[in-house]
């Protein structure tokens, strides 16, 4: 696998608190990689170590196969969770500044920034101060600043927080467009439905450790496997006693029935129909949230 970003055994502790506990994962080039997990799981700390904003206690970060350093990290377009701009600066000048500290010539930065402002319908605000703009507009400026130097790798920490549905949609479209152009995108978020349709690969972090990682497709297969969604009036203990059923999980009004390998679904359906009123019976295709909840539960069960 050609990994643009390879994280190996990264650790960080603050006093007695372990923020990141031996995290390793690889981001395939050209993928949209979801770095997922609940708040406080260690996602932001991991990203900050990748960006060398804080030092890791141990571990390696390889960028294009080489250890990341202060110069090499500049190929990353980084949108931090805590966003901010110089409020008194003019919009266009601010973008040019963000471009120049990332190594673009001021003239070129100005040209690109103006084009992006045009695309985001913000051209008329170019000479206004940042503080004159609405929150949503400032978010857009922030995003333009992140991609102005045409980074081959984007790391976005909670990119959709604070965006209204329309802007969320617009950002998703833009990210999909960039991904189709070959840009690798790492999305960190705890709001899973937002990235379900975007991610090709994920790393699920819980309590400072990765508990699930790989391509989303294979994970879905693993978790979906021989699992069926059933809505019937049969109580849970009777469902569990049906032939081939290994486990039962509640899912809203429905139940998820996991069958042992080789067990046929039609046998199960037949047994169900014999004993109860079946409202629905479908193959289970887990979404990220289902996978996440189950993975976290299994992680808890390990202790």
């Amino acid at each position: 696998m050609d990994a643009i970003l390879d994280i190996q055994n990264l650790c960080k502790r603050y006093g007695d608190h372990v923020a990141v506990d031996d995290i390793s994962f690889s981001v395939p080039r050209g993928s949209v990689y979801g770095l997922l997990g609940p708040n406080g799981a260690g996602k932001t700390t991991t990203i900050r170590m990748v960006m060398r904003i804080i030092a890791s206690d141990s571990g390696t970060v390889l960028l294009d196969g080489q250890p990341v350093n202060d110069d090499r990290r500049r190929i990353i377009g980084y949108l931090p969770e805590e966003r901010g701009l110089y409020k008194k600066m003019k919009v266009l000048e601010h973008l040019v500044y963000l471009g120049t500290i990332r190594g673009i010539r001021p003239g070129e930065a100005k040209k690109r920034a103006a084009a992006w402002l045009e695309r985001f319908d913000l051209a008329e605000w170019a000479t206004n101060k940042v503080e004159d703009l609405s929150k949503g507009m400032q978010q857009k400026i922030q995003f333009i600043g992140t991609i102005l130097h045409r980074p081959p790798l984007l790391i976005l920490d909670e990119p959709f927080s604070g965006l209204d549905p329309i802007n969320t949609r617009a950002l998703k479209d833009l990210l999909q467009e960039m991904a189709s152009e070959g840009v690798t995108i790492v999305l960190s978020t705890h709001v899973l439905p937002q990235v379900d349709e975007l991610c090709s690969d994920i790393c699920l972090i819980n309590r400072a450790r990765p508990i699930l990682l790989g391509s989303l497709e294979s994970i879905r297969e693993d978790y979906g496997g021989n699992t069926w969604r059933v809505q019937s009036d049969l109580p849970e203990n009777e469902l569990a006693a049906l032939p081939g059923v290994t486990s039962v999980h509640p899912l809203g009004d429905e139940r998820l029935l996991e069958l042992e390998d080789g067990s046929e679904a039609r046998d199960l359906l037949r047994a169900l129909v014999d004993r109860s009123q079946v409202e629905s019976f479908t193959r289970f295709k887990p979404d990220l949230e289902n996978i996440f909840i189950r993975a976290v539960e299994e992680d808890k069960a390990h202790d």
Partner: protein
Amino acid sequence: MINRILAVIRREYLERVRTKAFWISTILVPIFLGAVMIVPAWLAARGGGEFSVAVLDLSGRFFDPVRDEVGRLLSGDDEKLSVTLHSQEPGPSVEATRERLKNEVQNKVFDGLLVIPSTMPDEGQPEYVAPNVAAFKLLTVIERSVNNVMVADRLTGAGLDPEAVRELTRRVGLNTLKLGKDGEETSDQGQTFMLAYVFMMIIYMTVLMYGIYVMRGVLEEKSSHVIEVIVSTVKPFELMLGKILGIGAVGLTQFLIWSLLMAAISAPGAVAALGISGMELPAVPAQLLFFFVVYFVLGFLLYGTLYAGIGAAFDTEQEAQNFQGVVTMFLIVPLVLMMQILNQPDGTLSVVLSLIPFFTPMLMFLRMTLTQVPPIQLAASVVLMLGAILFCTWIVAKIYRVGILMHGSKPKFKDLVRWVREA
């Protein structure tokens, strides 16, 4: 790296030079200093005019001598002050006449009323009634005339010759000369000192002002959360350095504008055009100007670095207040120690104090204006300051690196020590 630091310097510089606050302070400071230096001179020169004063001489014998004395005092004066004395008859009631004359002063028939009691010169005091006793020069002339006449009268009464006494008691005065480097003597009536004092205050004010700008700049980056975007590209040390250098450049720009203004005012013809004849702006020796800039730059780098560290360690100016106060105190100490330097510019204590890097910019500069500071001491002061700047930068850079990403709890001194140790 250089390009990034330059980009930071450029931003810090332009963002400040473009503010109204910069231009207002650039223009107000010279106006304020000009007012302090020029207005008194202008007021003093402005004593001219024609005045008529009524004199009620109850002794009957002092009017003529006083009038002659006024004439004598004004004869050597080139400032267009002319005073005419009008003798008034006491009439039947002295009180009534006095009241009438007072009314006439009130109605501007006369500018003032001088009453000489009949008991003079042995007892009593002459009185002077005027709507405006602040007409300083007129008042001085009248007081000196009456005084001279009365003293002369007493001397004559004691059998002495007033002319001879005046000759014998003539003031000697003291001609103060400052010995220069090459042994040349220059006459100095304190203008150099006044100027040095003003310059020292400018160093104090600008180092404090620009130091606090640095602190506010760092605080702003923290509170607006822009800091994380920046340090994902620029190293914290580069950012700190760029910020300090950029803001320092703003200070130098301000000095440049002030120098140009001063040069314009000192240009031949400009003084006359302003109507301040007889007033001389003291010339500033080039060496002094050079060290003024040197000590401002060094002082700003030292204090600016410390203020940057304070800004990084705290979230708000309120939280930073205690530490800010400590640093500002270092800047105020030289003002308190100024008398020591003035009394003994070459004393051991003065030399030692002026070599302490935190005090050097002001105290060494002050000593330079008062005495011939040996070049070795000047060199030592610059070396010591550079050392202190490097040391403080080394310490502060560590605090800065940790502090700029810290939010929430207010750090204590021991936390700062821990940051320095761990960084």
